[in-house]
């Protein structure tokens, strides 16, 4: 059964710190790994990674995938209070349906 494990489950840091969120996975016929940010209700898309070793970057956020070791990390530099949210990692395997298997999420709190 496909599985995603995120760590840590909760993280509290001060504004300006750099954080690294971890995501390890087991999936049959890996297709892609996605990161989402969930502030209130609707998860919003951050990154989709399909190739190993290629960093995706958007402003202060970046992510990289290691398909050999089956994990991904999400980095946030110079954190701001607006970065406070739950960060969700999900994988898609080739199963005939577009089914995302999510991890439990990391609750990130940025204190001023």
């Amino acid at each position, binding site marked *: 059964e496909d599985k995603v494990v995120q760590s840590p489950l909760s993280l509290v840091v001060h504004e300006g710190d750099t954080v690294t969120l971890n995501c390890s996975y087991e999936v049959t016929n890996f297709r892609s790994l996605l990161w989402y940010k969930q502030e209130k209700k609707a998860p919003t898309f951050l990154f989709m990674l399909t190739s190993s070793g290629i960093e995706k970057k958007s402003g202060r956020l970046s992510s990289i995938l290691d398909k050999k070791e089956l994990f991904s990390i999400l980095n946030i530099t110079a954190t701001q209070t607006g970065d406070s949210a739950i960060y969700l990692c999900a994988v*898609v395997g080739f199963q005939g349906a*577009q*089914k995302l298997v999510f991890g439990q999420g990391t609750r990130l709190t940025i204190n001023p």
Partner: protein
Amino acid sequence: DAGVTQSPTHLIKTRGQHVTLRCSPISGHKSVSWYQQVLGQGPQFIFQYYEKEERGRGNFPDRFSARQFPNYSSELNVNALLLGDSALYLCASSPISDRSTTNEKLFFGSGTQLSVL
């Protein structure tokens, strides 16, 4: 452009009742998926529909059913509600262009918060 819209935003039901949740995808998106998110957990896949056909079903009992209409909107129905069905129900649409594609991001709505008393 409007995003994924869901209705209602909140719903309170009692055990044994049934509920219908509604979702309108982003214009042009033909795929709609439903997820259940219990407090403190990540979303869990319930169904995917593409071009009005069920493409996939998660590990949920037959009390859960869904359908997709010609305009690509969708309904999720849950019968004989249990306390454990209390959750945030998320709908997502995707711009996949054919039935075999899975590598596209999902755009989520704000969900329906269902409370079963």
